């Protein structure tokens, strides 16, 4: 069932690809980056590089940052991860998946009045360490957890 779903998704995207190639889609359909999107950060391969690209340096492990992630993810294409930071003045929470093709998965800005507690679904290509990164002041903190993936969600 899983594989069949994958095949269908694959062919759907092909149709789209052809439509782009044939010029059926508007010019805006070409790849472009949203304003303010940190391309460098999303191309990094490790926790330290990702933090560096976000504007920090060597993150410190913190017990006040709680990463919620499953021990075993049966389906790597949907893995629910969340992070709660009890570090005062947390202004940013990011998720880094070490063995994904690009390590940084998402970076959330937390304005004052918003809880430093976010969760989302991510894809994982294979079993990997997952990190939650929190920025407080100009310091970066992290929490780590290893997530085992039974079926990868990045390849085909």
């Amino acid at each position, binding site marked *: 069932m899983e594989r069949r779903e994958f095949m269908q998704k694959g062919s759907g995207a*092909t149709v789209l690809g052809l439509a782009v190639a044939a010029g059926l889609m508007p010019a805006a359909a070409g790849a472009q980056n949203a304003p303010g999107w940190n391309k460098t950060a999303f191309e990094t391969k490790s926790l330290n590089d990702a933090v560096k690209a976000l504007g920090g340096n060597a993150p410190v492990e913190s017990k006040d940052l709680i990463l919620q992630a499953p021990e075993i993810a049966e389906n790597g294409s949907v893995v629910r991860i969340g992070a709660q930071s009890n570090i005062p003045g947390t202004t940013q929470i990011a998720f880094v998946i070490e063995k994904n093709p690009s390590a940084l998965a998402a970076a959330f800005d937390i304005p004052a*009045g918003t809880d430093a507690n976010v969760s989302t679904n991510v894809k994982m290509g294979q079993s990997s360490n997952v990190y939650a990164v929190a920025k407080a002041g100009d310091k970066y903190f992290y929490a780590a957890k290893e997530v085992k993936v039974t079926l990868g969600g990045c390849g085909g």
Partner: protein
Amino acid sequence: MSDPMRIRAQAQGDKVTVRVLVSHEMESGQRRDAAGKIIPAWFIQSISAVYDGKTVMSAQWGPAVSKNPFLQFSFKGGKAGDKISISWVDNHGDKRTDEAVIS
């Protein structure tokens, strides 16, 4: 062009918890089609939530966020009956904004 987001915002005390389900392909750019060609990446790059003229959450996403992304966050000071609006932009320049009433 794209389907509406499903937004659920619930006030509890002085806090509003928002859950969003976005309808988007979130193609990673890693997969190959039947002919072995890489399917180009197509994903939401930025998403933000505005309440009462103020941004209460903004995020940058990479292609590792799942297809039809889920997102949960909460903020203080929201009132039931008020509106919250969520907007995203993807790497094709497509945009979408949807509103929901806080319950």
